[in-house]
């Protein structure tokens, strides 16, 4: 073994910085990744996207008072709420705003039979099997998940739609159910109206912990 110096004195400082610095660095990295995972960049909450037609829920729901089910026809019967076929748009727009440039993609779709291609705003991962109909029948207002669409000129994702957010209701469903008319944009759950939400749940059935089981949403 030779006695030659392998490291310069500076190496001590460097190694100390590395050793002591790595702890806060790891903490910062962890905090940053947790923050990132919850950020709206990741969840895409409150972000607007380019759509083929700048459809305004504010105008159609808030202004004209069209019921959700007029376009989202299968919301009470199916997992999927349904997207209106071009024909639904044309029921009115074959008469109204016939010359509007904004509506040209709709007219073209009706003319050519090529469907409109909307970009999904409220999108759950493919391994989550959300069912609209059962939530509607439990009296969960549309606005619980979709926000006040009657105040949205362009559609945006109103909630984070993270699993933690879903579990918030599934853990304590009572305050969120039992709305008399879930389709009313301003609908309030039963508890908010001073009713007995516990009774609502019991009369309909499931023991509560069931709602927290994996197989409820994942298959």
């Amino acid at each position, binding site marked *: 073994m030779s006695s030659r110096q392998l490291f310069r004195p500076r190496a001590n400082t460097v190694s100390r910085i590395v050793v002591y610095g790595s702890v806060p660095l790891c903490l910062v990295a962890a905090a940053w990744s947790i923050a990132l995972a919850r950020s709206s960049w990741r969840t895409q909450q409150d972000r607007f996207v380019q759509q083929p037609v700048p459809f305004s829920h504010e105008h159609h729901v808030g202004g004209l008072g069209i019921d959700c089910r007029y376009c989202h026809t299968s919301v009470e019967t199916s997992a999927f709420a349904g997207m209106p076929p*071009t024909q639904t748009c044309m029921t009115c727009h074959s008469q109204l705003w016939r010359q509007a440039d904004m509506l040209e993609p709709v007219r073209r779709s009706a003319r050519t039979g090529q469907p*409109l291609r909307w970009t999904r705003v409220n999108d759950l991962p493919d391994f989550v099997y959300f*069912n609209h109909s059962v939530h509607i029948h439990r009296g969960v207002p549309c606005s619980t998940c979709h926000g006040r669409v009657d105040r949205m000129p362009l559609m945006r994702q109103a909630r984070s739609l993270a699993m933690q957010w879903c579990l918030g209701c599934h853990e304590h469903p009572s305050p969120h159910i039992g709305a008399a008319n879930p389709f009313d944009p301003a609908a309030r759950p039963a508890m908010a109206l001073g009713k007995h939400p516990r009774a609502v749940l019991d009369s309909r059935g499931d023991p509560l912990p069931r709602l927290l089981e*994996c197989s409820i949403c994942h298959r």
Partner: protein
Amino acid sequence: MPTPVEIIQAWRERLARAEGAAYCDALQEAAGDRVLCGALQEVMPELAHVWQRRIDRRRLLQLLGASLAMSGAAGCSRAPREKLVPYTAMPEGLVPGIPQTWATALSRGGSYAHGVLVKTHMGRPIKVEGNPRHPASRGASDAFSQAAPLELFDPERSRACTRRGAIVSSSAVLRALAAVRDRWSARAGRGLAVLTGSTSSPTLQRQVHALKSQLPEARWYVHEPIDRSSVIEGAALAFGRPAEPIYDFTRARVVVALDADFLDAMPGHLSYARAFADARRALDRHDSVNRLYAAQSTATLVGARADHRLSVKATQVNGLARRLAVLLGVIDDGTSSHDQEHERWLRLAAADLQAHQGEALVLCGDHQPAAVHVLVHAINEKLGNFGRTIRLIDPVADASRSNGDLRALCARMAGGAVDALFMLDVNPVYSAQADLPFAELLSRVPFALHSGLYQDETAGASEWHVPAQHAFETWSDVRAFDGSASIVQPVIAPLYPGWSLPQWLALIMKGEPGDAMGIVRGTWRALWAPARDRDFERRWHESLASGVVDKSQSASLTTALDRNWQAHVQRSVPSEGLELRFTADASVWDGRYANSAWLQELPRPLTSLTWGNALLISSALARELRVVNGDHVSVEHAGHELTAPVWIMPTDYPRHTLTLALGYGRTRAGEIGTDVGVSAYRLRTSAAPWLGTNVKVRAVEGHSALAAVQLHHEMHGRDLARQMTLDGFTAGARASHSEGNRLPSLYPEIDRHGRYAWGMTIDLNACIGCGVCTIACQAENNIPAVGKAQVLLGREMHWIRVDSNRVGDRGEETVFQPVPCMQCERAPCEYVCPVEASVHDSEGLNVQVYNRCIGTRDCSQNCPYKVRRFNWLDYNGYEREQPLAAPAAVMNPDVTVRSRGVMEKCTYCVQRISRARIQSKIEERTIREEEVIPACAAACPSHAIVFGDLLQSDQEIHRWRGSARHYVLLEELGTRPRTTYLAALRNSKPLDDETLKS
């Protein structure tokens, strides 16, 4: 120079002496020692790659660090923005997200249909179920129908018309057709020949009739590799008119099957399997149980389920039938069987038949010569079985208008009398018998056109090829084994250009394809002859909705035995030497389903082979030839020779018989089906299509790895698949060893508080081992096919497997046992999962959370039933295109598509439970029994699987579980499975000397 063994020994000694740090140094030195590495490579060549591809410590740390960093980086992404594409005009009655069901019919091979319900999701057919209203289905389905959606979306289907391999437009085909039409029209059809498979379609029959009256010189030939001609001929000889027998197993107390596989091979097998299983269901010890005698010339499902089995040569079956006829007094003939075992079996059967006249049934296999059928008819007539357990109907696939089979066509082609040949939905270049030079004759035909689903062998040899339409894309009609007709309706618009079979006939006759629906409606308008248009529309829509045309069953023929029937009985002598049996394959049939990965990977019943066929031989013959599984042998028959790998069958397999399944060795099937197995057609002659005699076999060089999923069938003393004797059952024995008491357990008591408690019970007495449950599960649950190489590594993904277990004192009997996840209440898999991906829900499901799974595989290691499957590779083509991955269109949208590195398993079809639960919540009621039927139970032909809620005492599963046959698999482990079994029953006739002497 020391030998490698000495070098290794020296290092061993040195390592044994070293301790502590010196030991580590020695190891380090050993790893770097070239002499030692060389010696190790020499001694263990199969592990050479370990030394050659060395990974040092530095490299290992690099890889570890990189994978850690990349797994973190993978999380730093956002979900891609997806598109929502609504309809422009919503189809009537469609609710997005709710599947629609359409009734139609599918036929195995060409002619004998069973009704199916096709589930379509947003217009995509994704799953097939049996149609409970259809007599041939009774709610069950076969493996081919389960794979039909995959076939529909097969990217390798023929997509365009071609001429000599170059793509042409369909109008070019029409122009060419018009030119040849002019030629034959002028000559009353002379030179025109149409070759189709055998067909039961009333529309096609009507069109052929029209064709022949319009063009009297035109010829129609029928080529069906797996046909029933000897059945029809046998009835013609016995009764003086062609007919087909159909059987009623519910009334038959004694069944004698002479080489007849009515559970698998015969038309009507689904309904026969159900009736047979129902007749021996016996949940209670007072219930009656039928008795099955089976003589078999190869391994069959019927033989496996038989109470009395006899393994014989196929040519000995005639002798058996003769002797049986003598014992029953049908014919008079002094000879007795020279074989003691045969004689005993025959006497037992004869005594039983005698005692159950009118409640018995004798039947023989479709492949047996007509003479045997004559004898069997005479025996049934003598026993008074006609009108009770058996009846005769007109042949379902009427070929009386045809001008013969492929042999007749070849003769005509050789004479140069065929100018224009249409080969519609047939593949004769591949499936022609070895003695017919069809391909060569075809090259001399001036105008040859092939229409088929694939660019197959015949397409390659024909000038013109036009894509055919899939059964899900077109209008047609078809009959079932009992004559019941179904209208075949499209469930999706045609994916590719092409014409359906009725349109082809219209094209040939009129020059234009016309509208397929109009042609089919025309047939039924003529058949029903309705008084008013409204009546026709009503019947038409009723037939479409129910999937079967009301009251269309064929009427029973009332015929007496022909006076001269005895003249047709033959005194054939069993052949010396070896015999070669050709069988239809359980997965590819006659070869037409070869390009389906699901079917190729479905373990064949009894052998559990996947991806190819093999020559089945007896163990005695294997010893003689000195071959082991996979070794090549050369088979010589009638001047034709073929090299095939062997598969050795258990001891009860007939010693002098070789069996080779048809349908393999395709050369132009597609990427999946080409070059899988060997083609039995190369040994098959038109003189003896089902049986080769005086076959020579010798071992040759070569070995193929055969991918079997069950490597041994012995239970090694463990009572996995249980069987009881009927006597024991009647006397009150129980299958369960614990006498119904709960065994003590070290696991904590778990509080289950669900509203439902799902459970499944599988009746081993009803299971016929066909494997439809496996493929039905695959279709429902998006289970990938993995390919032969992966199956050889034991990586098949099936969530439910069908084990065949050898039971009995000498291991000579077989009990089939479907094994899905047991959904243990105390699941060993759950205790070992580090990330809680394997968890229980309150309804008793042991659920697998794919998103949590990190792929440690501890759960599979700890599972005593070995029902968990791991995605070793990206089988579903999630990251990169995989040739075996099913197209996205065929995926069930209700089930997650698992990616690489994830463990998966049976979940009792949780998606079906969820759908029913949500519906019941909306309607504020309890889930009804019939609402949740897992895919395996729904498809099962013999109703061997029942599923239900253990908390609702009125469900069928309770009656099953109350039976003395009920037991729990590996109950002693204390896992408390929710899936349980009913033991099989063997109803052997007690041996009394009286029977044997008389």
